[in-house]
């Protein structure tokens, strides 16, 4: 069922409805991961909705808590982006969109990360001004079931209470991001995992106000805003380079994706191939692969051999589906920058 791209008529066996990203029918492992990721994104949204509403009620005058609250509100963006993108990319490629709709993921990623950059920068300026002008945060009493207690205690409590769950959600989603090769999910998980630091910083800021150090709040707010901006810049860079067709990398952008090497190695191992080299771009979840092969002895391979090689490559990894093999007399250095020039062509 894997090499089903020969004709446009996609006659799938009835019964189980296959989960797909465009053409690509997901293997069972990815299918399960996708379902789980959707579930956890909904849990994240539910948790964040409750926690931001709760913190809004006790916002008070602490800049740090305000920054932490803004970050919580912003962390709603990646889950929504993920869920919307997961819906869009199920669409089949069409005549108008022959490459499918995978880029929806990249667009969602850019939008979410730009929001982080803007808010992070704004909060840095806002908190920095507070620090420079020596603004003393004023936090008074709070009516707690008929007792007036210091609102700061409530704020610290709220911060510590909401610090834990995102870390767990982040850990779960990080694993799924790897399975699904999903960078939005990765960005989301990374943010969640770091969320406890934000909450703790805000709590420390408020505790500082409590002992009469007015500046701890502004400093904590600066730390939080800087982390928001850092997340934003890091994600914007990753999202934009992916949209710019950078060579496909792993889900966390830490290294080139190994499947490229595997494909080249396999192709070069075939007895009719002299050399092979591929260029690969990341469409979101799936890759576009163009493999240039130089046939041994400059003899054009048979169609059967080409199709068999293509099928074998597609079977290597579920992400490889949209793949073409191009027989050439020598590897074209203009399309494969970095290969040792085979000399002469231009």
């Amino acid at each position, binding site marked *: 069922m894997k090499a089903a791209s020969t004709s446009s008529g996609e006659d799938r066996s009835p019964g189980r409805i296959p989960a797909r990203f465009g053409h690509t029918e997901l293997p069972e492992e990815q299918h399960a991961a996708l379902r789980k990721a959707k579930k956890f994104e909904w849990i994240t949204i539910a948790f964040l909705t409750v926690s931001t509403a709760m913190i809004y009620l006790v916002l008070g*005058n602490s800049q740090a808590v305000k920054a932490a609250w803004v970050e919580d509100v912003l962390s709603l963006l990646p889950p929504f982006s993920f869920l919307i993108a997961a819906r869009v990319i199920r669409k089949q490629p069409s005549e108008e969109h022959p490459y499918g709709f995978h880029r929806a993921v990249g667009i969602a990623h850019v939008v979410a990360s730009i929001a982080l950059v803007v808010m992070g920068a704004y909060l840095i300026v806002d908190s920095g001004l507070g620090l420079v002008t020596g*603004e*003393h*945060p*004023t*936090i*008074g*009493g*709070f*009516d707690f079931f*008929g007792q*007036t207690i*210091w609102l*700061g*205690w409530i704020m610290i409590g709220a911060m510590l209470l909401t610090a834990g769950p995102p870390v767990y959600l982040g850990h779960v989603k*990080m694993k799924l991001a790897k399975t699904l090769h999903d960078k939005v999910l990765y960005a989301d998980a*990374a943010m969640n*995992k770091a969320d*406890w*630091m934000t909450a*703790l910083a805000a*709590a*420390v800021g408020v*505790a500082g*106000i*409590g*002992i*009469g*150090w*007015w500046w701890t709040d502004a400093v904590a707010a600066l730390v939080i805003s800087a982390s928001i901006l850092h997340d934003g810049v*890091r994600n914007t860079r*990753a999202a934009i380079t992916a949209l710019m067709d950078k060579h496909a990398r*792993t889900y*966390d*952008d*830490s*290294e080139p994706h190994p499947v490229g090497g595997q494909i080249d190695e396999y192709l070069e191992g075939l007895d009719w191939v002299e050399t092979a080299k591929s260029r690969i771009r990341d469409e979101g979840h799936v890759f576009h692969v163009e493999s240039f092969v130089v046939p041994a002895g400059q003899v054009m391979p048979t169609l059967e051999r080409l199709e068999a090689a293509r099928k074998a490559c597609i079977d290597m990894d579920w992400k490889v589906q949209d793949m073409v093999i191009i027989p050439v007399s020598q590897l074209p250095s203009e399309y494969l920058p970095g290969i040792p020039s085979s000399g002469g062509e231009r």
Partner: protein
Amino acid sequence: MGGKSFLQRGGTRFAAVLAFTAALAAALFLAGCQSVPVDPHGTLDRVSDGVMRVGASPNGEWVSLPPGGEPEGREADLVRDFAGKLNARIEWTTGTEYVLAEGIKHGELDLMIAGLNDKTPWEKHSGLTRGYTESTDERGTRHKHVMLIRQGENAFLLELDKFLMEAMTSK
């Protein structure tokens, strides 16, 4: 970048331990302090058994200034009761809201009353009490009434908030 680097993995665990220690230290430190919050400028300490500098600007039933006498009205009475609770003597200053708000901003006044609500523009350079009571004006708009204190004097503010809460519930 990536979550795979050794630094980041080891770093997270290290940071967690560090943060836990810091939180613990902070908790102990806070518990050690007799009273939280603390005033950065020590207003509550200075006012108790001392002098409380209060600004009053006339505004309807809340603050009125009879010629030659001390300020009167609901808020003036409340402030007198509060001062009595702290065993403080009141030093009154009267004037327009702007003049008094400047006094609050520069720490020349501890407290200001002017029948203000929680939408007051003076909030930027001062601290507000909780809305201790509500009123409805002739246009039907509801107002939460507040008093102003010097920005960040949280112990003094908490004391005042507690007092206002009690004064309102005991009525």
